[in-house]
């Protein structure tokens, strides 16, 4: 890998991405088109996030990658390794120690700080895409702030199912102007989108970058008589006992016994290290 530039991308590509990031920060929630490059990993596997991270990392950074909240999922391992090799950055699994976190599908449980950057991998950046497949149409809708279709869809859900049938990638309104796809995070994570860290979103295949600066107003779409609820499995974590974390459901045996564990592996580990024990955990759990 030594024949490649720092953080893999050539400088001209990084400049192009950096310009897009700055425009994204200036217009929160608006999807900036960028000339995404082919990366040495497949489209759909985080190429947008990887390009944003590559354009943002400095050698002084400490980098963390999570997929489904976990540091040890194979794609997270693969991306972390890529930047260890090409950028020589320090890596960590500890949320507090990371300066730049690339994520797929989760926001860490621990509150992020002013000094951190969260980079999301985004598969379909257009929140209106499944209501209107045409880019030419959705672009017009954003420009005219015409989001009626989205409200109609959510309202139809309520009238048909008694509930909004969107459990992840739940659309948000950013700073009262742009409806934005927060990437396929569970809606449990939506309230965390108003945070102190800088949030950058990269969609490689779809060639879009967007951003949410710190303390930006991010509101999950809802109705006065049907307010948004950030839901999760109604259990505590079986390893660390946390009652406020997003949980994975794990099937334990043929009889269908299950356990619930924190999806944020570092959050769970640090709680156990601090002595918290869940239903199936032990004091010295690794």
């Amino acid at each position, binding site marked *: 890998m030594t024949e490649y530039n720092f953080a893999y991308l050539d400088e001209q590509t990084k400049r192009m991405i950096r310009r897009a990031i*700055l425009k994204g920060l200036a217009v929160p929630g608006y999807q900036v088109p960028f000339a995404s490059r082919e990366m040495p990993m497949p489209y759909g596997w985080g190429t947008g996030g990887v390009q944003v991270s590559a354009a943002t990392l400095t050698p002084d950074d400490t980098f963390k990658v999570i997929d489904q909240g976990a540091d040890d999922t194979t794609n997270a391992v693969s991306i972390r390794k890529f930047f260890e090799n090409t950028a020589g950055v320090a890596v960590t699994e500890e949320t507090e120690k990371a300066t730049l976190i690339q994520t797929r599908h989760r926001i860490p449980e621990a509150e992020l700080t002013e000094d951190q950057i969260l980079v999301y991998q985004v598969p379909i950046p257009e929140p209106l895409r499944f209501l209107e497949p045409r880019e030419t149409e959705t672009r017009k809708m954003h420009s005219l702030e015409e989001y009626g279709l989205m409200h109609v869809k959510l309202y139809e859900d309520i009238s048909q199912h008694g509930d909004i049938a969107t459990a992840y990638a739940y659309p948000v309104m950013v700073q009262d102007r742009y409806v934005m796809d927060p990437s396929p995070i569970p809606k449990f994570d939506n309230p965390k989108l108003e945070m102190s860290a800088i949030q950058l979103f990269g969609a490689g295949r779809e060639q879009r970058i967007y951003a949410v600066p710190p*303390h930006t107003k991010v509101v999950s779409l809802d109705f006065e008589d049907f307010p948004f609820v950030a839901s999760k499995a109604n259990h505590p974590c079986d390893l660390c006992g946390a009652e406020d974390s997003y949980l994975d459901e794990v099937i334990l045996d043929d009889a269908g016994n299950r356990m619930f564990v924190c999806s944020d592996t570092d959050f769970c580990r640090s709680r156990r290290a601090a002595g918290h024990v869940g239903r199936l955990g032990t004091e010295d759990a690794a």
Partner: protein
Amino acid sequence: MQAQATQFAGGFSNTPVDAAHAFRAAMTVMARPGEIRTLSGAQAPVPVSGAAATLLLTLCDPETGVYLAGASDTPEMRQWLTFHTGAPLVDAAQADFAVGTWTDLLPLKTYRIGTSEYPDRSATLIVECHALAQTGATLSGPGIKNTSQLNLPDIPALQANSMLYPLGMDFFFTSGTQVAALPRSTQIAKG
């Protein structure tokens, strides 16, 4: 001879790393209007500041049109920019980036503000200032917890720009090796 010497000098010593640090400073101030950061690494011919020179090397290349306003438009500066970035020199109306003092950059209405479908297609102005200080105008909006303060060259003009939101220009303010920024999303109040 002097011009030649200046033209080739003043670039980054280690481009990928210097540019990465510079971008992080630029991104941080754009994401947090009112914050002031140090930005250095490049040195352009006078009168362009180190911070402005570093921004130009970090963000400009053959794909971006640059407008050198007023006093910054010197033969030395043109050569320096062309040699280090390859960026085409353009008029204010075509510029992706413009650099100069506030009065040299005026009138603001010349610059691109984006289109309703592509608000990103707007100019970024690099405004050379005497000093940057967290006093003066009160800022609020994205990137700002409650409020922040920054000395701005012309409050009514910048308020008018933010009224165009989501269209409008974005600003970097530079002084020596210091940088601050004002995106179009920021609400501005006096004092």
